[in-house]
């Protein structure tokens, strides 16, 4: 290992503090509310997974957390708190200094996230020189070391993005995300664009790096199966809201929300008895006109007119997140009723 490995390692005995907290976060795109009041917190060294179908707003959460929303996206309400301080409404200079240094991001498509006309090494140097006084030569050397860390020949700093393979580019993105040793890395579908074998390698790489560097991860994906192995805690997102969140093990053993149950039933285990695959009927709602009441009710197997009292609530009232067991939150009328 080279000098890049920091002295600070994750010490499980130390009390973990909250790094990032989203409180009642609301994000609009023009007239459409893409994220409707979500609460999420990530502690030091924790891997939090955020899962949901395409279009549920998870990438928006990532962009909002780093304050890099693209117009017409804007934060309409709530706050993004990093180590206790609200980032929303901060002046651009302090935001600029916060970016990458405290929180960095790994994008879905490395080919699109790397500047095609700049050498890979220079894209490291950029990030470094934006935050500290360092001369180019030393920065390039550091870049080489980071590449080595992710399993790429350090001489590739001189390469252009299009000269690397897909898997290599993704590693480069991860290496750049590590450049300033951030406390939290947000990963937005980092493996979706890759084939399964490379996916595995990348995930293993991330795990190894996390052990060495001790950063926390917000892992955003539509592939719940990935999170079950990888994450400490998982939050399920649907139509702009979080419907369930729990430690990964508990989520598998005791999924409460019908949507979560549907997701878990959607992919078969490799071993075990033959099961009938059931998907979730219907498709995600149009966020411009979400369903009234519980947003999942048109697709929910437990929502029917046969149970009129419950049905009335399901179609008119939005359920709120409630604790069903330690660390396990669910937003569902059915679960609420059962608990009573």
């Amino acid at each position: 290992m080279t000098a890049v490995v920091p002295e600070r390692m994750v010490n499980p005995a130390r009390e973990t503090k909250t790094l990032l907290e989203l409180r009642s976060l609301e994000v609009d795109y023009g007239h459409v509310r893409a994220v409707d009041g979500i609460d999420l917190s990530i502690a030091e060294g924790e891997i939090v997974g955020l899962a949901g179908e395409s279009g549920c707003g998870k990438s928006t959460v990532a962009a909002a957390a780093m304050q890099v929303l693209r117009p017409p996206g804007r934060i309409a309400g709530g706050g993004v708190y990093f180590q206790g301080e609200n980032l929303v409404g901060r002046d651009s200079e302090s935001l600029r200094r916060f970016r990458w240094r405290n929180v960095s991001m790994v994008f879905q498509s490395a080919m699109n996230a790397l500047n095609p006309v700049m050498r890979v090494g220079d894209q490291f140097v950029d990030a470094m020189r934006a935050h500290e006084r360092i001369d180019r030569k030393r920065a390039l050397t550091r870049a080489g070391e980071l590449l080595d860390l992710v399993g790429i020949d350090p001489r590739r700093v001189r390469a252009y993005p299009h000269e690397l393979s897909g898997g290599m580019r993704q590693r480069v993105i991860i290496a750049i995300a590590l450049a300033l040793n951030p406390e939290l890395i947000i990963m937005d579908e980092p493996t979706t664009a890759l084939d399964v074998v490379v996916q595995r390698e990348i995930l293993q790489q991330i795990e190894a790096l996390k052990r060495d560097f001790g950063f926390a991860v917000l892992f955003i994906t539509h592939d719940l199966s990935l999170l079950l192995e990888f994450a400490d805690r998982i939050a399920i997102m649907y139509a702009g809201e979080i419907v369930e969140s729990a430690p990964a093990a508990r989520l598998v053993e005791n999924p409460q929300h019908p949507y979560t149950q549907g997701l878990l039933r959607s992919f078969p285990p490799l071993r075990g008895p033959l099961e009938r695959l059931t998907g979730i009927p219907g498709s995600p709602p149009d966020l411009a006109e979400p369903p009234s009441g519980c947003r999942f009710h048109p697709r929910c197997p437990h929502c029917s007119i046969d149970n009129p009292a419950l049905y009335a609530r399901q179609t008119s009232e939005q359920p709120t997140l409630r604790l069903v067991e330690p660390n396990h939150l669910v937003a569902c009328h059915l679960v609420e009723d059962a608990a009573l």
Partner: protein
Amino acid sequence: MRWFARRLAFYLFAIWVALTVNFLLPRLMPGDPVAGLLQHLSPAQLSSNPGLIETYRALLGGGNHSIWSDYVTYLHRIMHFNFGLSTSNYPTPVSEVVGRTLPYSIFLVGVAFLLAFVIGTLVGMVAGWRRGGLVDNVFVPVFMTIGAFPAFFTALLGLWILGLKLNWFPIQHAYGNDVTPGFNWAFLSSVGRHSELPILVIVAAFAGGWVLNMRAVMINTIGEDYVTMARAKGLRDRRVMTWYAGRNAILPPLNGFAAQFATAVGGLVFIEFIFSYPGAGYTLQNAILGNDYPLAQAILVTLSVCVIFANLIMDIFNLILDPRLRTA
């Protein structure tokens, strides 16, 4: 690199086509080309230029040689830059006339259109980056409005207002009557002074197109992930605008610029006419009006070659700026 080699081959081929078209043009016109042309010359012209008919015959055919041998002779002469004798400046060789006037045109086109492109793309870049900002709301409409007027209208307007009424610029010719051509400062500064108004007019008329073009590309580029990542890295705003967005956004307009060379040369003809600027365009027009076909055709060929050459330079530039082409 293969891409470049193919382009080079195309250009060489295009030059050959230009030469051949030039050769065929008079022969394609109905009737005996020489006789047809002679119809439009006055007897006075004919008698004062005894070798005229021979010159025409040699260049335009109609003699008793086969078209193929004429063609070979033609190509052979072109290789030695022998375009024949100019009939309106008899007996000056055409190549000399062209050599005298071409530099002025290249100077005007080179400086003016380049400036229009640079200014236009810079304004467009800033306008696209900060939409709704000062540049976007003020400069863009101004450039657009001026650019919407036909170039020669703007030129005439500029000539009338800035040259005639306000007397800020000299309005005619390439240099004053009091200086003699040569590499002396008085001459060069006079040339510079006289080119200011044409250059200003060209920039005003043509920058608008680039502004809009670059702005549109910039707006699309801003949506790219690498721009978002650059911002997420905490880079300074200006750096993201220039090195990430701008550097990529300029590639399509650059190609558009290359495609505009032919148009630029066209516009040049009008500008030179309005300002009586003795460049190749002005000479071409006078040559045609005076039925001096050898000169006119030679200028057409020269201008075509210039356009091709400029395209070649632009390709080299592209190769430098876009590393993806180097492995294509």
